[in-house]
């Protein structure tokens, strides 16, 4: 969808782990990573080669936000939803819209494209993994947990689907204002925009720098702790 393919690179960056993943799954549709089924249509003046989204996909990792100005994008995401058992919004653009929606300075891939929304605003999403891009380690852990059906682990990402508006403001609204912030500083380290600075042990958010990637919200242990305590024994 609409994004910078950074998430795909992060996925491919898994090196030897990618091989583990690839041996466990059958990659049927992924730009640059797989030979997809294509449909060739010849008309009088051109030959159109289209990638075909296969039927009965187990898990679809969707990168990028949905451009409402592009009917292909809207149709494709609907088709993806219909034909996939599990749909995952991978990366901040897919989860919140990220830079495509909140970045300043025009991120439009085409001059006429201006309307970008999170995947979950167009179709039902099962898991949301934010990050700009999500780290390779997090993608590997996610995919492995999905393959093993580790619902305890996945619960954090299932809950994150509702955070289509996540931003640095959530730290104020959900943590500081609720008397829950204990000043660990994880949010400040998480923010790749350096929009979060620690001031007297509490995060101070420079909203003008925030691209609503949602990372700080996912990482904050005072918004959500893993329900299963065993998960903390790493």
């Amino acid at each position, binding site marked *: 969808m609409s994004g910078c393919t950074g998430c795909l690179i992060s996925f491919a960056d898994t090196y030897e782990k990618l091989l583990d993943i690839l041996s466990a799954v059958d990659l049927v549709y992924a730009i640059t990573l797989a030979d997809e089924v294509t449909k060739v249509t010849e008309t009088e003046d051109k030959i159109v080669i289209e990638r075909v989204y296969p039927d009965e996909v187990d898990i679809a990792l969707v990168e990028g936000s949905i451009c409402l100005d592009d009917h292909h994008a809207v149709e494709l995401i609907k088709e993806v939803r219909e034909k996939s058992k599990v749909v995952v919004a991978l990366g901040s653009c897919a989860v919140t819209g990220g830079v495509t929606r909140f970045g300043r300075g025009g991120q439009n891939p085409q001059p006429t494209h201006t309307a970008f929304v999170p995947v979950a605003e167009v179709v039902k999403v099962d898991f949301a993994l934010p990050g700009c891009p999500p780290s390779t*380690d997090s993608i590997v*852990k996610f995919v492995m947990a999905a393959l093993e059906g580790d619902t305890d682990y996945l619960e954090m990402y299932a809950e994150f689907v509702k955070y289509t508006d996540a931003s640095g403001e959530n730290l104020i609204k959900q943590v500081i204002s609720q008397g829950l912030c*204990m000043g660990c500083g*994880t949010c400040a*380290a998480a923010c790749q925009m350096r929009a979060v600075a*620690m001031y007297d042990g509490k995060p101070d958010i420079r909203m003008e720098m925030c691209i609503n990637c949602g990372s700080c919200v996912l*990482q904050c242990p005072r918004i959500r*702790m893993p329900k299963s305590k065993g998960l903390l024994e790493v």
Partner: protein
Amino acid sequence: MTKPIGDYIEIISARSTDQEILKRSQDGGIVTAAYIYGLENGLLDGVIVADTTEGFKPMPKIAKTREDILSARGTKYSLSPNMSLVKDAVKEHALEKLGFVGTPCQVIAMKKMMQYPAAFRGTVNNIGLVIGIFCMENFPYNGMKTLIEEYAGVKMTDVLKTDIGKGKLFVYPKDGSEPIAIPIKETMPFEQKSCHVCMDYTSEYADFATGSVGSPDGWSTVIIRNKRGKDFIDKMIAAGKLETQPLDMESKFGFAMIEKLSTDKKTKNAKEIEHRIEMGLPVPY
């Protein structure tokens, strides 16, 4: 409820054998000794510490030398966002074996990050050691300042050391005069409110955890929790960096005290969590 002090492999009393460390460490100097040992023996290549700036204000720092680690000896009863430097440490300082120390909540933050490292590229495998300290509660800087300046009458810029023990907060002035004691019940109103939903006293998810409770003055209790923690402590003992003695399992001031304080904290804070739920307020669990 699970065990009051979490899972562990071994629990001992220990202290550093380095007199320079002990001169200013809070308790047995375990954290400082472990960091320095790690650095000097290639087990760690950098560590995060809570140092202080002007006015005894905690400030997390990345330390790569013995001097920098020594400078951060001692407990600061105020917030030091140690997690905030984790990404800089592995990215900008290119540390591959980072040592981390934190209160139980910071250890939990670290472990959650390691399990869900979405915003932490290439970090998880570069964490070399996670040390936890015991923690009953913490204080916002301005709360501590009010207590020390108004109640004890010592300027923050004149504070050498603070210590909580035996039911009192002791403030040690830099001029070497006698410490001023503030009874804990006076300090309570200044506690950080978010500490009241905290269910961990002994850093249950650290590689090893340490605190003063349970051991004689000048010694520390060390709770070794996993293989990495055990290997590290065993190496320190073998290298003569730590002297140890069995933890007091008999009297009420040893193991029983750790269990009691931990249970007290959990019972009290479980009530607060319940209360918040009744009021419709969010809780992180």
